[in-house]
């Protein structure tokens, strides 16, 4: 029975991860630690494998359908991978409580920004031209702007990823969407394409140290694979506005989790 619950955990993480461009770590870690009572160290190792499964599963669809901007993703990966290594290195020197609370503040700000954007779109007239042709029939017709600052902030996303063991999509997507002018769905697909690479370095360390229990990891990873594929296909049916609403809820949920973790640490 536990195997089924683990598969369902992965399935949920995979669907939401693919829909929102997240690795799913923010869903897997709270479930594994709170419901399955697994140590956080074990949960992080499993989560990193899940992040790679999300990225791989979603990329199978996104790359073929040309949703992910591979060149932009590869450029930003230069910054995120360096950032992830730096983040992992400095993790031992930074107060965990400060980190969790800081991250929660960033998430709440993101949720507020998304909420305001949804509200402003709702109040706009029907004939208003969508910014960057987000809702247009051909979502590939957009111009990427603010590359230097986007590159720098992606490095920061990598640092946060290295510090907290997550994919970093929560930071990369707003950076690509709000700052670089990438439509939300393309930003989510590109982020999903990138997070597997960021998670790989950390996952290998856990793997080589023998910290990844295959009997627990495999059901979660298989569930994530199925969920990521399903989520990528659902992406076609979900509007950008609905996606933003989901983002707001997820951001607030994760922020509360981070605050609770921070206060407990």
């Amino acid at each position: 029975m536990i195997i089924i619950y683990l598969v369902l955990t992965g399935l949920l993480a995979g669907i939401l991860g693919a829909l929102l461009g997240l690795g799913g770590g923010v869903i897997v870690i709270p479930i594994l630690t709170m419901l399955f009572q697994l140590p956080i160290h074990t949960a992080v190792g499993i989560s990193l494998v899940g992040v790679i499964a999300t990225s791989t599963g979603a990329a199978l669809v996104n790359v073929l359908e040309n949703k992910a901007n591979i060149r932009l993703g590869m450029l930003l990966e230069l910054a995120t991978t360096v950032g992830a290594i730096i983040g992992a290195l400095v993790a031992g020197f930074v107060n965990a409580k400060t980190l969790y609370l800081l991250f929660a503040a960033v998430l709440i700000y993101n949720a507020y920004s998304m909420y305001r954007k949804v509200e402003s779109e709702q109040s706009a007239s029907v004939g208003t031209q969508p910014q960057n042709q987000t809702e247009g029939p051909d979502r590939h017709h957009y111009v990427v702007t603010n590359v230097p600052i986007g590159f720098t902030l992606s490095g920061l996303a990598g640092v946060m990823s290295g510090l907290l063991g997550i994919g970093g999509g929560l930071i990369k997507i707003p950076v690509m969407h709000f700052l670089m002018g990438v439509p939300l769905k393309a930003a989510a697909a590109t982020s999903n394409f990138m997070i597997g690479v960021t998670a790989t370095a950390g996952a290998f360390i856990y793997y080589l140290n023998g910290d990844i229990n295959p009997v627990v990891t495999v059901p979660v990873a298989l569930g994530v694979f199925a969920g990521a594929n399903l989520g990528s296909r659902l992406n076609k049916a979900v509007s950008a506005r609905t996606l933003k609403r989901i983002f707001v809820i997820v951001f607030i949920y994760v922020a509360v989790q981070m605050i609770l973790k921070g206060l407990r640490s």
Partner: protein
Amino acid sequence: MYRKTETNKAISTVLKICSGFSVTLMALGLALFLSKGNQADLSADIRVAGLSEALTGIVQLDPVALMTIGIFILIATPFVRVAWESFSFWFIEKDKVYALISLGVLIILSAGLFVPGIR
């Protein structure tokens, strides 16, 4: 902004091959593990000693070995993907700038494995 390229197709092929192997090994291992009457004990310390032992175990259809190699292939997939992207950008699309960018990512990833205390 960008078009569907040979690199997209190449990446998709790499992802399909790697994830296909990974999922097959993990699913087979899990099925064999459960068929032998084992239960998922979250507190149990189940693992194989190393890659060589896992590879040997695959031949004997050892469930834990199959799952271990499946996980290893999954974790290695982004590495392979970036390496293939670099190759594809350089030799197929003749886009040396992005080939070098991909190579840079690969070097950073490889270097990260040797940084002490990365966890």
